């Protein structure tokens, strides 16, 4: 995986300011977080496979063990895998290449971002060695997070480190995109992935500080004796929930936008087609989504005792998200129309993404309705909904990205057979896992329960099927990730542009790209776009 010609030296990686190496460091860190959080998911699923204690010791301490797994699964998947996998790995590796730049605007700040990210991973992993393991879920709602015996500070510091890392990365990439595009490259000639990161990072820059302030107040309440969230002393419980979701709903789009961006790249390349209605997807889709993203957070507080007018107002704004997302979807589907589609591993994931986007997106509509949400919210219906769109759709986009750019990154081709078998395990497994949860969710199965003896006996059957599905996914994940490692070492050598793409990272660089990226400075003319195949 080296991007320089000399042999491997660890210090050359740790102190590297090359965006490609930093991207790979992000990838390794986020896959590590993904693996540990994935093991937590398996533990959760085994525990839920039957009512009563399955692998936890007994009914009295069972919750203490199970809640730590849930906490780590949620926090690590979102903060440690999805956001860094997309805006860390993919954005780092690809943005400068796609816009024809030698590196990012501030390479040293970029190195600081990845160090902070790794520090965040280490702090998150300390969950497993401290005696008072954090158990506050990834949401960390007070008063529980203030009164629990669990170590809330680990949660706060993980958010601080990851958040600081994200803010630095956001500033860095926004400046890079605005000022370092190749001469002649206009805004309407940018790759969709560049646009998706541009919009996602604007969200990060605006909203991460709000989350950071919320968890900092939590830290003060817990350890310094302040009362921001303590109603007995004039504080307010709901203040935290508002601050938290004011960031954390837009954060969903920080994940969703680059995931869409990756699938646009794959579709355009594999179908050898221009992006269908590019401007509608960019301005009506991505930019409008950023504009709406900050006005919908109340849908996470539909049954939290907020004033009714606010619940109704944000029901309307939440429903209106269908406009930008719908325009992006039409453009994604339309890119296939009259194409010349080649099927390979990235395109397998792309085709699955069409389905995942629809299931995950459409099941969000009942949850957007205040009146529906008072029943479906906090049930396994909600859980299955956000796993389809944010969990699986986005995870598949990271996998598709690694598979698609693998020849460029490693200089070698993946083992196609192993990749395809891994895909089928992943795809079939996620459906077996999450469809049963949709069904019992409508019947009232709550989230975050490890025991459900009070519910009808047939729930156990559905949970059992979901657990089997989780293990099928696990096989697929092991096959996929081991394929990357083995193929990086001994895969067949790749040519410079194996997919015949028209994007700069394929047409103008060596495989893998050397330091400085481009052998000759890049300029483009007014007719160039990454998608002009005719």
């Amino acid at each position, binding site marked *: 995986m080296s991007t320089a010609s000399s042999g491997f030296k660890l210090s050359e990686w740790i102190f590297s300011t090359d965006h490609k190496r930093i991207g790979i460091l992000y990838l390794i860190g986020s896959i590590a977080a993904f693996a540990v959080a994935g093991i937590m998911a398996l533990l959760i699923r085994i525990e839920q496979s039957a009512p009563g204690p399955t692998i936890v010791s007994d009914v009295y301490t069972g919750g203490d063990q199970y809640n730590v797994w849930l906490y780590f699964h949620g926090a690590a998947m979102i903060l440690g895998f999805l956001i860094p996998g997309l805006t860390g790995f993919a954005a780092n590796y690809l943005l400068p290449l796609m816009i024809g730049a030698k590196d990012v605007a501030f390479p040293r700040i970029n190195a600081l971002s990845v160090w902070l990210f790794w520090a965040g991973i280490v702090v998150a992993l300390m969950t497993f060695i401290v005696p008072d393991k954090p158990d506050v879920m990834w949401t960390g709602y007070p*008063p529980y997070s203030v009164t629990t015996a669990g170590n809330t500070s680990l949660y706060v510091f993980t958010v601080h480190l990851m958040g600081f890392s994200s803010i630095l990365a956001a500033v860095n990439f926004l400046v890079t995109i605005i000022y370092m595009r190749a001469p002649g490259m206009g805004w309407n000639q940018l790759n969709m992935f560049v646009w998706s990161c541009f919009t996602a990072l604007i969200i990060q820059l605006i909203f991460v500080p709000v989350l950071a302030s919320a968890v900092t107040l939590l830290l003060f309440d817990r350890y310094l004796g302040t009362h921001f969230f303590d109603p007995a002393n004039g504080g307010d419980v709901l203040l935290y929930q508002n601050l938290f979701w004011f960031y954390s709903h837009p954060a969903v789009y920080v994940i969703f936008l680059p995931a869409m961006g990756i699938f646009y790249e794959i579709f355009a390349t594999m179908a050898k087609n221009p992006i269908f209605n590019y401007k509608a997807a960019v301005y009506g889709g991505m930019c409008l989504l950023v504009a709406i993203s900050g006005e919908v957070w109340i849908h996470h507080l539909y049954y939290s005792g907020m004033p009714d007018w606010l619940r109704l107002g944000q029901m309307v704004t939440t429903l209106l998200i269908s406009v930008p997302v719908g325009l992006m979807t039409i453009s994604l589907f339309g890119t296939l129309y009259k194409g010349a589609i080649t099927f390979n591993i990235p395109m397998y994931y792309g085709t699955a993404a069409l389905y995942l986007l629809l299931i995950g997106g459409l099941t969000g509509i009942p949850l957007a309705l205040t009146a529906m949400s008072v029943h479906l919210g906090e049930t396994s219906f909600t859980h299955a909904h956000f796993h389809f769109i944010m969990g699986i759709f986005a995870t598949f986009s990271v996998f598709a990205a690694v598979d698609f750019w693998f020849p460029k990154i490693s200089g070698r081709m993946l083992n196609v057979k192993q990749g395809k078998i891994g895909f089928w395990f992943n795809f079939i497994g996620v459906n077996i896992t999450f469809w049963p949860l949709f069904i019992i969710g409508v019947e009232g199965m709550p989230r975050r329960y490890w025991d459900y003896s009070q519910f009808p006996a047939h729930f156990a059957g559905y949970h059992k099927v979901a657990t089997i599905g989780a293990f099928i996914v696990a096989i697929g994940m092991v096959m996929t990730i081991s394929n990357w490692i083995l193929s990086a070492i001994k895969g067949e050598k790749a040519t410079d542009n194996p997919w015949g793409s028209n994007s700069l990272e394929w047409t103008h660089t060596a495989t893998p790209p050397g330091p400085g990226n481009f052998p000759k400075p890049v300029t483009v003319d007014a007719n160039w776009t990454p998608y002009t195949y005719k």
Partner: protein
Amino acid sequence: MKRAVSAMVLMGLGLHAAMAGAGEKVAMPDPTASWNHLWYHVLIDLAIIGIIFLTAGLYWVWKYRATRPNQIGEGPKLSKIGAISFAVVPAFLFMADDFYLAAKGWTVWNEYRNVPRNAMEVKVTGSMWSWAFEYDNGVSTTFMPDSKEGEGLVVPVGKPVVLRMTSTDVVHSFFLPDYRVKEDLMPGRVTYLWFQPNKEGETIATCAEYCGNRHSFMWTKVKVVPQAEYDTWVAKQKQGAGA
């Protein structure tokens, strides 16, 4: 092609609107029934949109496979008017559906929030990890999930019940799955929900906001009984408390 797609979408919405028109009015407000009714409409709505998109997507994926190496796609280059219409028309169709759903959702939401005047009031207090109920006639009950001891919430059939709720420690949520309703409880605020117990029998309410170790066990019996039985129950509770 363009025309075919928009015709399909319009047909879908038309069909949908026609179905929505049939048999709306319920004499007495019953949010549970309205929820079930709305759920049915939402499912149809989602199925129409999902099937249109998924069919188009999968059909195109299958139909436009490359047949020879180095083949180039023949995707359309939209004219200015084409591009604008392909943004504005779908945007309005999506908005139409949004406002249609919002209007229906709004109606049901009003039922959920407007408590009938004759509602019986019960005060609910959530604590880690149990529920306590206080009736306006002075009776108070609890429920212990471990031993399954205690009366839980007992209400007479046919009379709306409003719960005024608060918490002594952390955030909880009173979730009645069979009545399709939940609302959070938290210290420092009083929240409410109401439901219409139309069927006799026993069901459960369970906590739906993460509250620590025994969150999964924070449930209570909810019993709906005939008025006569309820009156005897109340008398018995008062006697028990007095003795």
